[in-house]
């Protein structure tokens, strides 16, 4: 069966003043896919994601989310569940109050409660339900953001470094949830620095460097492309982002100290 396009990004450019963070970037994510967005720090991953979820205005480019242009922001955002890289929530609220706010904006009703109960139990957040978010650990804040993103059963999950701070159990549960979400026909855009996770989890990856896609495809396809068939995704990543060259010299210099 032909997979539908869940996300189409065409010629996306993002500028911060005179600095170009994303430079004519294009990629497509299909339904049922987990698309890994990889790249070194400052490559433009988070900027791309912020435009996708409607936080940032691009300089130019076209983005469609399930056929809805991102300019139609309210309609586009209803398709998305988003976990930001820097989890800054309304810290003075408790998770209960925060979920109430998010559920109100998303026009959910009381029928959401059994789903919320399942998530809070799975992520072991129940005991912190009436504790202000400010008093939670980084991992628990991350769990609040993840549950808020999953609450409305979105078609597209946009996860910017979602595993940061999570304990092994929650990390495993989230990865299973992501896989299940893709299996049932949803789409996932997943940004991470952990190459092993991307290698195991993602259907396809797009490697960004200096605002441009420098490599895209399945891990197997990329291996063939860079002719290091035995190499891991980390080796491929270092090669296509041109970070491999001279790296051994740097390591040697550090070891000599």
């Amino acid at each position, binding site marked *: 069966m032909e997979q539908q396009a869940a996300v189409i990004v065409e010629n996306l450019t993002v500028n911060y003043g005179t600095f170009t963070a994303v430079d004519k970037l294009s990629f497509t994510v299909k339904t049922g896919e987990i698309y890994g967005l990889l790249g070194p720090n400052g490559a433009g991953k988070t900027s791309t994601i912020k435009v996708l979820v409607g936080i940032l205005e691009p300089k130019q480019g076209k983005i469609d989310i399930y056929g809805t242009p991102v300019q139609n922001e309210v309609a586009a955002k209803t398709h998305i569940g988003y976990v930001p890289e820097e989890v800054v929530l309304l810290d003075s609220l408790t998770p209960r109050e925060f979920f109430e706010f998010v559920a*109100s904006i998303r026009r959910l009703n009381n029928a959401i409660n059994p789903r919320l109960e399942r998530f809070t139990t799975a992520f072991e957040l129940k005991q912190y339900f009436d504790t202000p978010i400010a008093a939670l650990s980084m991992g628990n804040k991350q769990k609040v953001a993840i549950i808020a993103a999953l609450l409305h059963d979105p078609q597209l999950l946009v996860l910017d470094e979602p595993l940061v701070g999570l304990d092994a159990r929650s990390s495993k549960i989230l990865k299973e949830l992501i896989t299940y979400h893709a299996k049932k026909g949803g789409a996932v855009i997943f940004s991470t620095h952990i190459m092993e996770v991307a290698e195991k989890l993602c259907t396809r990856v797009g490697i960004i460097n200096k605002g441009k896609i420098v490599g895209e495809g399945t891990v197997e396809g990329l291996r063939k492309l860079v002719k290091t068939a035995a190499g891991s995704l980390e080796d491929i990543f270092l090669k296509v982002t041109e970070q491999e060259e001279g790296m051994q010299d740097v390591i040697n210099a550090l070891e000599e100290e």
Partner: protein
Amino acid sequence: MRFFELWTLAQKVYREICFQSVFSFRSGGMLPQRGRGSVEQLVRNAEVNTLISKVLTTIFVAVFGFTVFVPLRFGSYGGASEKVIFASGVSAFLAIVMSLIIIMGLQVSTSFVSSKVLEVLGPLPLSKRDISSIVFMCFVRIFDIPLIGSMVILLVAYFIAGGTLIGGLVSFVGIFVTEIFALALTIGLARFFYSRVANGGGRSRWKGFLRTLFILVWVLPSFGTYFVVSFATQIVQSFASATQVFASASQLLLLIYPFCFGFMASFASFSQNVSSLTLFLAAGSSIGYSFLAYYAFRWTVRSVRTIGAGGIITSVREIVKDTVISPQIPWLGIIRKDLRVASRSPSYASLFLLPPLETILLGILLGGSFSTASATGFSAVLGILVGISLVTLILPPTLLSLEGLASSYTRSLPLRKRTVISSKAVLSALMYASSLLILVLIALYLRKSANTILTFGLIQLLSVIAASVLELVISARKFWREGFAVGNMYARLSTFVVILIPGLILAYVPVVAAVLAFEFATSMTAWVYLAVALLEFVMMLLIASRE
């Protein structure tokens, strides 16, 4: 480590605490995309804001001090004896310094006790003693100008009023003790606020009540500061009357702070027949309070060091019975969220309480003039309505700035601009309406007709809604463009004022029209007032519906 090195490090920590106190939640995670120059500007703004707050507090102290003491030199206080006035003046001054320092320091101190920046110092190769010194220097820097300023002001004002050297020494001890008490209370309240209120969750109504009570305790003195400074002379006279009444009945007053220091300064300044018992009581209690201040100082240093070691314990978690939530329609959800956030932030909560407090005050002051017939009554009602509108219109941009607290998350939600605008406008209108209700109740209590208040007040409500919508449209457009807490009066005062001015103009236009109509065609006043306000209301609703 040398003092200079510690002081330099303390300066860096202090800058960060200023920044955190003004840009709470780091501007909703939107700072990284603002560019280096813009963020550096914000850091400078935060420090300047804190400096302004310190200088303003010192100016308030100076105004109060000189207003109280200078007339003494010229014998301007009629009635009460000079000695009693002098004792009352010193006592009132000490009380005012204490409350002003607490009010000024509470917001920054709350950031100080909750600051994670202190954790950065821990892993560095600094001894515990050095870290304690840095933390303490940083704490002192929050208050430096008002502390030194108050001492200088009291001594200068005291000597201008004709004080003696011994009296000056007593006054110095009094102000020193007062400042230590103020620091101890500030750090105590800030710790309580952080651990039990700001960081204390809980679903119970009791917790909600506790939060409201704490906010009220903070807001009332803040609001009272203006009136204290405005009515300094009258306050001292009231102090003097109370002093005379109590002093004649018993000598208990001599045991109470700050009166003991006030009387000691008075005894040392004027030759007077004082019984040895009176002198013993005043001197004994002054020494007692000085010892208490010594222990308060040690407690303050210990508390500040505990904070430096990261030892603030927040409230104990409650047992969670269920995870049930009750979503509302979007605009109601926003209102509920705004009220919850504001109830945990004194700086926001105080703005909610301003309209009703202003109404009570103006109602009591001008209530006697309420009348339907006279020009005085007409201008009294309109004057109060203008006053309430002014303080109500501070709310909309502030409410919108709440959206900036977690903007990197909330802006990813499917939220329409007009939903945000309508929710904040409704909340602002409710605050105005509740103030109007209070005004009607005051009029009824004073046995005056409430018809004019109700008619004009409801007409003005249309204009207040229109003005709120205008402010919200301007700030929402800026917010959507910049993704930043554009309307936060604490963060960017200039932008706040620019947003406020069009709103105020809109709220005043119908009032000006009503005044002109009253002048030239009295019978048409209400109709002209209604027509202009209604026109504004309809126009702004049309503009908002297109957002």
